[in-house]
């Protein structure tokens, strides 16, 4: 029986985020928060592994109370247990502080054989969480996994295919192992009505900084984050090119091709 953990994040749908042209800050109002899309692929890989070998899938996230919605989505798609770490003291955490809170809390839930993560988040997109979670779990690490081939519970190994730049590598790792999942072969399932309904009222376990025993406050939130963001600004506008405005697509293209004649 495998004990599987999936670490997920709720993110703003960045394709809909606008930037205030004056202040350069994000306008989040009205932007829906969604389950980070690549995390859905990680969850799918975890649930399929559970279905093949038996066991249970726990999803965990750190975020505001609304992040419970992302967890319910995971419950609908096959997760068995959902854990939300929510506290103002966790805010403004970088990957080092976030991984610390998640792993400290996860260790209270049991010991995990496999940990699945998405490759990166849509918003922060550092792609650093997986490595730092693996470090704190003292787990082996396989990134860019496109297929989980075999879990051998007796030998305590997992064998998986990794999608690398020039080909596919087959690798074997000792458990516990943290894998980041490619979307290639793990298209998220569409929950059926029954599981969706059940997820609406399912229990979500909550932890705050006060209810995670032994949590070192110096390592959480802003104080625990060695990286800082002193400022943000809108990207510089390029110098701009020559706009072709001839009145119709055909005439625009004619004028364009004339300008490109020596390059074609």
């Amino acid at each position, binding site marked *: 029986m495998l004990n599987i953990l999936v670490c997920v994040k709720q993110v703003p749908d*960045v*394709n809909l*985020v606008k*930037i205030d042209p004056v202040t350069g800050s*994000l306008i989040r109002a009205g932007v829906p928060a969604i389950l980070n*899309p690549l995390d859905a692929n990680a969850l799918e890989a975890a649930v399929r592994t559970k279905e093949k070998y038996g066991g249970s899938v726990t999803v965990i996230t750190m975020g505001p109370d609304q992040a419970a919605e992302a967890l319910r989505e995971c419950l609908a798609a096959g997760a068995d247990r959902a854990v939300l770490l929510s506290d103002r003291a966790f805010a403004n955490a*970088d990957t*080092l502080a976030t*991984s610390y809170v998640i792993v400290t809390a996860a260790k209270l839930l049991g010991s995990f054989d496999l940990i699945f993560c998405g490759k990166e988040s849509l*918003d*922060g*997109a*550092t*792609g*650093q969480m997986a*490595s*730092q979670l693996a*470090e*704190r779990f003292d787990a*082996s*690490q396989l*990134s860019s996994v496109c297929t989980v081939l075999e879990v051998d519970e007796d030998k305590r190994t997992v064998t998986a295919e990794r999608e690398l*730049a*020039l*080909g*596919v*590598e*087959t*690798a*074997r*790792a000792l458990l516990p192992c943290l894998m980041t999942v490619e*979307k290639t072969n793990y*298209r998220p399932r569409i929950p059926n009505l029954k599981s969706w309904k059940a997820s609406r009222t399912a229990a979500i376990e909550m932890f705050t900084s006060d209810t995670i025993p032994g949590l070192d406050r110096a390592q959480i939130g802003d104080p625990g984050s*060695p*990286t*800082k*963001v*002193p400022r*943000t*600004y*809108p*990207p510089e*506008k*390029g*110098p*701009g*090119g*020559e*706009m*072709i*405005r001839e009145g119709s*697509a*055909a005439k*625009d*293209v*004619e004028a*364009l*091709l004339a300008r*490109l004649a020596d*390059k074609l």
Partner: protein
Amino acid sequence: MNKYEYKDMWVYIEHSGGKILPVSLELCCEARKLCDAAGETLCAVVVGELHRSEIERILACGVEKLIRVSGTGLERFSVDAYTELFTQLCRKYRPSAVLVGGTIDGRDFAPRFACRLPTGCTSDATQLVYDPKTGDIEFIEPAVGGKMMAVITVPVMRPQVGTIRPGTFKYLPAGARPCEVIDERFDFPEEKIRTEVLDFLPDEADESLNIADAEYIVCVGNGLKGADTLGRYRELAALLGGKLGCTRPVFDRGILPYKLVIGQSGVVVKPRIYLAFGVSGAVNHVTGITDSDVIVAVNRDPEAAIFGYCTYGIVGDMDEVCDAMIAQLKAKV
């Protein structure tokens, strides 16, 4: 921690099949400028054997210190061994910064040794600026899908660790300087390596997926209506003798494979003509196309950022413009 006790900026030299990856040399060139600004020493860290001719390429970037590491357990890259190696080396030599190429391996082990030390780690900066007031490097990177730029610093901890994507910086060697060579022995017990490679199957050579050196590129962005409208862009690319590429959201929508994604996290291209259809112009994408000779942008939104970077711009429906281009190119032949 007194950060001023940490000196030297390091670049990890990643190599494969006896050849240094271009990203490592790009980082040496960029770090050279940082070191000049900061009055620090540029140090390259090489793990394993490299031929003299390859070492010369590192030295040509103005490296003043070379740490050559040999020992057991390092022959093949593993996260376990390389994480421990860099943890130990950083504790021993106390560098102010460690820059690592944003390859799959680099992105696997750099955040991990940063966590073990512990210190701050950043990824995917597109600019590195030394701030003399604080003594910190500003890692400037696109955030929120390229809609804004964020300045990231590591103001207290050292070293400042950063992974940088291939192609972000230019390979412009500043010339060799006197260089001190340090030989470092590090043995990692083989039995502590928890991963093993069983097999490697190279991708079948699909030329359509190899866009890095294409002379003509037709790139479709998130303005693409759907997979069913792709045919005309393939046709245009074929007519030009070029390749089809896409932006990240098109991959996210499951329409085209990752190998066709152009930009910072995908392929960096430098064609004679780059035609962007329905591309908004997010920084992450623009970073990957700036070396194109000519950039043509077609977008229905006259405010699209891509028009700031193009050579020629057309405001209009991408499908209509593409169809007109196909018709007129065919008429010429």
